[in-house]
């Protein structure tokens, strides 16, 4: 850990414990006054803490829901209604958990895009970035299995479609053919599937916690980046995390909780799908099947490719490509504030991502605009998605004319103050 100051307790009890297990010092140097962070962090740096907060919310509400939920296909659907109607405050806890998944993804998406914009994936933070991508993959797996548990129509068919993705690998000798049945524990999604998803939905968040601890550990080796993307050089570039950023994060957290509460109390089903209030029926697929909003861009990529195996490969690649980002981007400047062309393409990438999400919830044959179907638009948007990573990023980052970078964080802050 890049401990800037040593923890020196004055309280004799704390000192006695600290001499035997330096746990207070660990907290002090991670989230306390002992961790010096760049003095110019803006509110985009709030979202890591918000993601950590959502993880805790999901684990607490999830453990409580597990006290009432029964993973049995004959009762699971009604059981969720029992939790919402009969269990004391069950309506509140279930709604927080269901909407909390969306909130977790919102803050994580902002956190990831913050990393894109300010070059947080660049040296020496590559492993920090990898751990982040692993956290994201674990979140997707956990969120998917959690959505299956209420055993509604979307739960069931979402589970069927996503597990069937693995049938694209049936060409693999020995394991290919039985892979999907192995996942299901039968010949279709059924009782064994629900049971094991419940088990894994409970397990994965704790693995996630482990990876988050590694993520924070890796963060504290070089320390946080900052909006300028230049390394903090001396004490005048930094301020203690506590009280400065604890206060800033607390304010951001308050604003975020208000946003969260609007969904929980006023629009609890806004982010859900009405078909999930119909009990799972293995004989009828909903006419319009869509995943949760946070998977939509990837779902659009899957459907954009007319070949089954290639579609599955494209979908997985669209996330795995994040692992090579530190090398695709060859610029020696981190922040896009000084990279105007990269900035332009970044925002194009964000708009394209939102557009892919929009296309993901339309039927493939829908005419979206100009006599063109959602499928064709999705093919263009998918092409841009990969072009951004594989062509635009390597070329632009190495060739563009950058703006002058300030000599230090302090110099930049003083300059801004002079302008008033």
């Amino acid at each position, binding site marked *: 850990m890049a401990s800037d100051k040593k923890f020196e307790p004055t309280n004799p009890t704390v000192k006695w414990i600290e001499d035997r297990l330096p746990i207070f010092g660990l907290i002090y140097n991670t989230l306390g006054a002992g961790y010096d962070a760049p003095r110019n962090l803006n509110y985009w740096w709030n979202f890591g803490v918000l993601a950590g907060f959502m993880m805790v919310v999901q684990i607490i509400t999830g453990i409580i829901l597990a006290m009432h939920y029964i993973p049995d296909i004959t009762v699971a659907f009604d059981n969720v209604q029992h939790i919402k109607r009969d269990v004391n405050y069950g309506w509140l806890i279930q709604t927080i958990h269901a909407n909390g998944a969306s909130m977790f993804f919102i803050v994580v998406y902002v956190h990831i895009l913050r990393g894109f914009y300010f070059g947080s994936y660049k040296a020496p933070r590559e492993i920090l970035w990898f751990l982040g991508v692993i956290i994201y993959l674990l979140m997707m797996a956990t969120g998917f299995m959690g959505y299956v548990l209420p055993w509604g129509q979307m739960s069931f068919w979402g589970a069927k479609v996503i597990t*069937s993705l693995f*049938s694209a690998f049936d060409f693999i000798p020995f394991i290919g053919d039985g892979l999907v049945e192995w996942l299901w524990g*039968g*010949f279709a999604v059924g009782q064994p599937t629900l049971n094991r998803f419940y088990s894994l939905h409970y397990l994965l968040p704790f693995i996630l916690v482990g990876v988050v601890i590694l993520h924070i550990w890796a963060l504290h080796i070089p320390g946080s980046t900052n909006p300028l993307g230049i390394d903090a050089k001396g004490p005048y570039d930094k301020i203690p995390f506590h009280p400065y950023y604890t206060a800033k994060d607390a304010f951001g957290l308050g604003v975020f909780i208000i946003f969260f509460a609007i969904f929980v109390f006023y629009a609890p089903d806004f982010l859900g799908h009405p078909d999930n209030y119909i009990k799972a029926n*293995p*004989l009828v697929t909903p006419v319009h*099947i869509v995943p949760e909003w946070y998977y939509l861009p990837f779902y659009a990529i899957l459907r954009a490719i007319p070949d*089954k195996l290639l579609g599955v490969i494209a979908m997985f690649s669209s996330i795995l490509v994040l692992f090579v980002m530190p090398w695709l981007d060859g610029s020696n400047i981190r922040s896009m504030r000084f990279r105007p062309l990269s900035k332009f393409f970044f925002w194009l990438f964000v708009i394209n991502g939102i557009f892919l999400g929009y296309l993901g919830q339309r*039927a493939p044959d829908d005419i979206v605009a100009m006599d063109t179907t959602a499928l064709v638009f999705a093919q263009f948007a998918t092409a841009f998605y990969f072009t951004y990573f594989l062509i635009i990023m390597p070329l632009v980052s190495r060739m563009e004319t950058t703006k002058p970078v300030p000599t230090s964080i302090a110099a930049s802050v003083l300059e801004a103050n002079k302008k008033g």
Partner: protein
Amino acid sequence: MTTHNEVVEERRNFLYIATGAAGIVAAGATAWPLVDQMNPSKDVLALSSIEVDLNAIALGHTAVFLWRGNPVFIRHRTPAEITEARADDTADLVDPQRDEDRVQKAEWLIMSGVCTHLGCVPIDQKGDFGGWYCPCHGSHYDISGRIRKGPAPRNLPIVKYAFLNDTTVKIG
């Protein structure tokens, strides 16, 4: 001449490899039950057949039955549909198969109702080829259940079945 030390070293290397190999085999043998427990259990495998009375299915209609957790389509095809299916034998097929090879009796098409793309249930009598249309990702099947257009790679599979008599069929 081999020295005492060289002999010791050789023996030690042999023991390293032997121990390592035994360890890997043991770890694999231990892991297998942990992996195999997720495969379909014996009671799931035992639920293997259903019997269907065909009298209830009118000409030109499709009935759907649940077999091993999945839908099975039984279509009572009209002569026109059979003619159409046979005529399409020579069409440009993604997964070429003759209609003759997909049925035991031409008027009874008995096949899986699970789209070979990602497992949804195709909708009866919809799509561009007068057969089935999968709403999830837009695969079109013809009246013989063959894939004609869309992302699905294969025809709707023919399930194992046998006619017990003229009006009863056993699936599985």
